[in-house]
């Protein structure tokens, strides 16, 4: 079956702009996770959803970052007033239940010029 998909695969933007990154989880998976991976580092947790609600957003670095999952399936990570330090690969994962095996998408490489 289809795995986790993320769009766009690459996004180049200018400092100060707003961006949206999309994640389509595996069908039927109730939990969805966002991670950020900087060059040479492991993924860093940002936020996860159980259904429509954000169960833990403690990893969001500041209030420029926000994520939604309005219907309990697709999720959008939103970054306002982008900064060069936001440049990274943003990974999304989903699991059948919270705490279950996480399956990762191919990520979105964000470059802020």
């Amino acid at each position, binding site marked *: 079956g289809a795995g*986790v998909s993320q769009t766009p695969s690459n996004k180049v933007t200018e400092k100060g702009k707003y961006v949206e990154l999309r994640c389509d989880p595996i069908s039927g998976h109730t*939990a969805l*996770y966002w*991670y950020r991976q900087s060059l*040479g*580092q*492991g*993924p*860093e*947790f940002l936020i*996860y959803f*159980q259904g429509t609600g954000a*169960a*833990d957003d403690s*990893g969001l670095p500041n209030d420029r970052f926000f994520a939604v999952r309005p219907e309990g399936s697709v999720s959008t990570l939103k970054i306002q007033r982008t900064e060069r330090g936001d440049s990274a*690969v943003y*990974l999304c994962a989903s*699991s059948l239940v*919270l*705490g*279950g*095996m*996480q*399956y*990762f*998408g*191919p*990520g979105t*490489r964000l470059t802020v010029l």
Partner: protein
Amino acid sequence: EDKVVQSPLSLVVHEGDTVTLNCSYEVTNFRSLLWYKQEKKAPTFLFMLTSSGIEKKSGRLSSILDKKELSSILNITATQTGDSAIYLCAVASDQGGKLIFGQGTELSVKP
């Protein structure tokens, strides 16, 4: 603060060699430890180790969890060029679903 540390950070070997990758952790309420292989962008699952399953094997890959030493190793025997990748170790705690990752070990297998 919860922490996962991997070593070495990078490793270059020749085909046919055996490698051992290390992972140590300090996590409140440990639940499981996972190993992922990352080629290009998407990490792909290798093993999950828990208190009830401290040793796993799949083909040339195997992994052991040492709960006393708070560590794990990933062994790859008879390495092939296709094993070249970043290997990530992650730990899940009872405090929700998030994974805490180490920095990764970049393995390069030369022909």
